[in-house]
């Protein structure tokens, strides 16, 4: 009769892949089934025969070879990590090094640039330029003086007035200029020029020579306008030496009446 039992169970049994219950059930079945018993026997035979199949001993140098392989691997691993860490280290150095140097360079360059710029600036405006400006301004000054002096000798009255007006721009008191102005005041034919010159000279009233020149000039004035202006200036300057010159003017018989009154007032003001 044909056994309905699963033949796979035989190999499971041989291979000890059965649970206790399966094993017990299988063994009961085997006891009563000749076919399965036969199958099992055949399988067991071949299985046991396989046990006898020889496997040569491994050669003795296998563990040695293994150890050598392990050591080599470990070394290469270390080299690898060393190499990697070396590269990483180098990169790190580059990273930390380069910006440091660049920063230092740029700072040095900026500082150097500032310093050079500052020096050039100082030399330029602070020193050389100032000198140049001083020279130029003195030259301009001289030119103005010369121009003024030459203008005072100009035949045109308006030009001479222009020349006198330049003196307000001349700050330093130059003897030449004052002499020229005084002579203009005494001898210029135009009344207006003389008046302007008088006004210009009052700016230099701080100078003793100017005051003296003005006092002496009183007697030489013939124009009532100038005489009157002179009287005003003297009062303004509180120049007591002028009294004598003014009294001389009063002695002149053709003196303008209004001027006479003015001079008298001035004299009383001064005394």
């Amino acid at each position: 009769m044909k056994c309905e039992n699963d033949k796979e169970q035989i190999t499971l049994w041989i291979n000890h892949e059965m649970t206790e219950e399966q094993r017990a059930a299988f063994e009961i079945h085997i006891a009563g089934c000749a076919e399965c018993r036969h199958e099992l026997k055949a399988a067991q035979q071949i299985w046991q025969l396989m046990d006898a199949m020889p496997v040569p001993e491994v050669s003795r140098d296998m563990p040695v070879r293994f150890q050598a392989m392990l050591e080599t691997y470990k070394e290469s691993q270390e080299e690898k990590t060393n190499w990697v860490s070396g590269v990483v280290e180098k990169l790190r150095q580059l990273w930390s090094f380069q910006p440091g140097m660049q920063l230092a360079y740029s700072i040095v360059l900026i500082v150097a640039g500032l310093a050079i710029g500052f020096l050039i600036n100082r030399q330029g405006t602070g020193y050389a330029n100032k000198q140049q400006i001083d020279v130029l301004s003195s030259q301009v000054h001289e030119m103005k003086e010369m121009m003024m002096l030459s203008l005072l000798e100009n035949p045109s009255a308006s030009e001479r007035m222009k020349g006198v007006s330049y003196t307000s721009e001349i700050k330093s008191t130059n003897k030449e200029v004052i002499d020229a102005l005084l002579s203009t005041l005494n001898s210029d034919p135009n009344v207006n020029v003389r008046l302007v010159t008088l006004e210009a000279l009052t700016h230099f009233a701080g100078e003793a020579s100017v005051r003296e020149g003005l006092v002496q000039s009183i007697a030489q004035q013939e124009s009532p306008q100038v005489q009157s202006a002179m009287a005003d200036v003297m009062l303004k300057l509180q120049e007591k030496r002028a009294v004598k010159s003014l009294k001389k003017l009063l002695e002149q018989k053709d003196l303008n009446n209004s001027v006479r009154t003015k001079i008298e007032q001035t004299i009383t003001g001064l005394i």
Partner: protein
Amino acid sequence: MLKVKNGDLDKLGLLFERYHRALFGFLFHMTGQRELSEDMVQNVFYRVLKYRHAFRGDGEFKTWMYHIARNVMNDHGRAIKRTVKHQEVTELAETVAGDFSADALIHKKQELAILQDALSRLNEESREILILSKFQELKYHEIAQIMEITEGAVKVRVHRAINQLRNTFLQIAN
């Protein structure tokens, strides 16, 4: 193995001590070539080192090792023929079966030679599964892991392989 994975490479020495004979047996039965099998054992352990990070630790080292061994064999070419020298087998058989009587010894030698032959004639898959279950004494669930098949498939294939081997053996014997 987890210690090896975490960098303690010297612990691999212990694993080698424990498994290299069994692994050699597996490879020898599969290829029938002693030197090639030894080289492959080295190769397997080298790969264990190299790919130790891939060891997940959820299975046993043993199954992982056989898994690698199968890959190594694949790389050598599945076409490796079992070319066991008959002489070698006979010599070895003497050492194994030393306690048999003279007649029985001759008989045993013959049987073993036939078995070798039969095993060689089996297809790769059947031979492999027989070797794994018989010589390596691996459980079905371990074989299933190594060969990446289900346990049920292992059961079926082992049964089929034994029958094939027996039939082939009987064919040669008669």
